[in-house]
């Protein structure tokens, strides 16, 4: 179980296949699109990093809505 939000997920068993499952599930759950440059295990290997990316993606999505 995760103790801290900056624990390395790849050390806990997140391989490339699991990574794909996580990204797709999060994108569907939050109705967001993660930027392609950040779709690397190294960019998303802690809960903290992932949370930040989700927040930015949500904010970006809202900005686009406002502009339209």
């Amino acid at each position, binding site marked *: 179980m995760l103790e801290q939000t900056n624990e390395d997920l790849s050390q806990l068993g997140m391989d490339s*296949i699991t990574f*794909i*499952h996580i990204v*797709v599930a999060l994108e569907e759950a939050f109705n967001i699109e993660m930027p392609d440059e950040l*779709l690397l295990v190294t960019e998303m290997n802690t809960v903290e990093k992932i949370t930040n990316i989700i927040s930015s993606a949500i904010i970006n999505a809202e900005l686009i809505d406002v502009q339209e």
Partner: protein
Amino acid sequence: MSDLPQKIAVVSNIIFEPHFVLMAKRYFGNDVIVYPIPYCEYTDVEYQYQLTESDMIVLWLDFECLFPNFYNAFFSQTKNAKMVIEEVNGLFKRVYSDLAITTNAHIVWFSFEDYFIKLPTVLGYNYNALIDKINVDLSDILKDKVNFIDLKRIIAEVGITNAYDPKGKYRWNAPYSKEMIEAAVKEVHKQYLIEKGLTKKCLVLDCDNVLWGGILSEDGVENLKLGSSGFGRAYQDFQRFVLSLYYHGVILAICSKNDISDVMMIFHEHGEMILKEEHIACFQVNWGNKPDNIKRIAETLNIGLDSMVFVDDSPIEIESVKAMLPEVTTILYDRDTMYEQFSCFNLKSNTSVADIEKRNETYRTNQSREALKTQYDSYTDYINALEVKIDIHEAAPIEFGRISELTQRTNKCTNGIRYTVAEIKERADLEDVTLYSFSVSDRFSDLGLVGVIEIENDTLTLFSLSCRALGREIEIKMLDFVAGKHEITKIDFKSTGKNEDIKAVLLNTFPFCDFHREE
């Protein structure tokens, strides 16, 4: 064998996640284990282990990834098609022999596709045979050894606009959409059902407005709609479809509210009938109710109700069968939408027409046997009058297909063990295993290979006898033969829910045996 959680290895140069595992769970159950194996690394020790562990291996290689510059090399005429085709063939012969050495698993091999190509928008749809040539060659190499799947056909079903996922393709090399992967997993599951022989066996057909348009007893034969054009065409097409099912092992029966003489006249004399009397194993044509007639068909043919499918155009008849015989699968005739429902049949593509015709002949000559029975008071005298001949020998490889089918189809006269062809081949090679085949003929027809017994050391590991051969005390003769040649102290037995009777026979013949029950 078929009850264990399936382990499925997927060897590929592309990614199918996150969809493949989720779809596999939906079709194979939550316990299924999927091993994704990268094509470039399948010789690694870890992946070799997974391959040997797997019950099924799916091989799906993406052409665009393997040969991204193939088409331009072809257009620039630096490489000709023949060279590339040979290169590809060589590659696959190697992959196949690698797999064949490692494992006995059921292999499902997807063909190549060229629908990913974007050139038709500029070139039009002029036929380009390259991928098809490669697929044809592959199909010749792999024929009979693997299930070679027409990937283009699956994409056509899903639709080219729905089959691809460009986002997935460029993110992590997963070019196919969720919809496409579901269709592919569904196909893998279908091939699993076919390999295991999990299928309905008997199709019971109504006549009026199913085999022909109109009601025979009301409209008269001249007004029936059946032919190659007009209103009758749909019925003739349906008859052709049913005949194809017959040629793939489905047993056909007729259940119709009509006068039998009228119906037989149509079968014998109507020039547009595709189905003939010789294709039908049993006619129940009378004015009685359909559930009773279907039960009678099941008893006559010795087929379980849960292996039967009933087609009728009348919702009332369908409902009455559903209510009285809930195990029977019902299909309401609908010209356009009913074909989907025939997926309850899972039929092998390589059937022996000779075996099928022999089986049907046995069913049809059963009436003569019934007539003979009435002439004798004692059952023994009747058996003698039947002049039953049994040929017993150690099973030859050419019989393995028929034997596997027998173990998969039989529910009653079986010890419950079922084998695929690969499993029989593997076991027959073992020194301690002897496999006997029993072929029967009587005065009225040759029944062909109807029984099989396998002995491993002192254990009876397999007993299967086709229901067609019942009523001749063959099961006793089979067991006596084996008891005379082997010292049996153990019997493997697995309940099918319907094989308690044969268990009693086995216990009777080998009263001091250990029954090894598999739950």
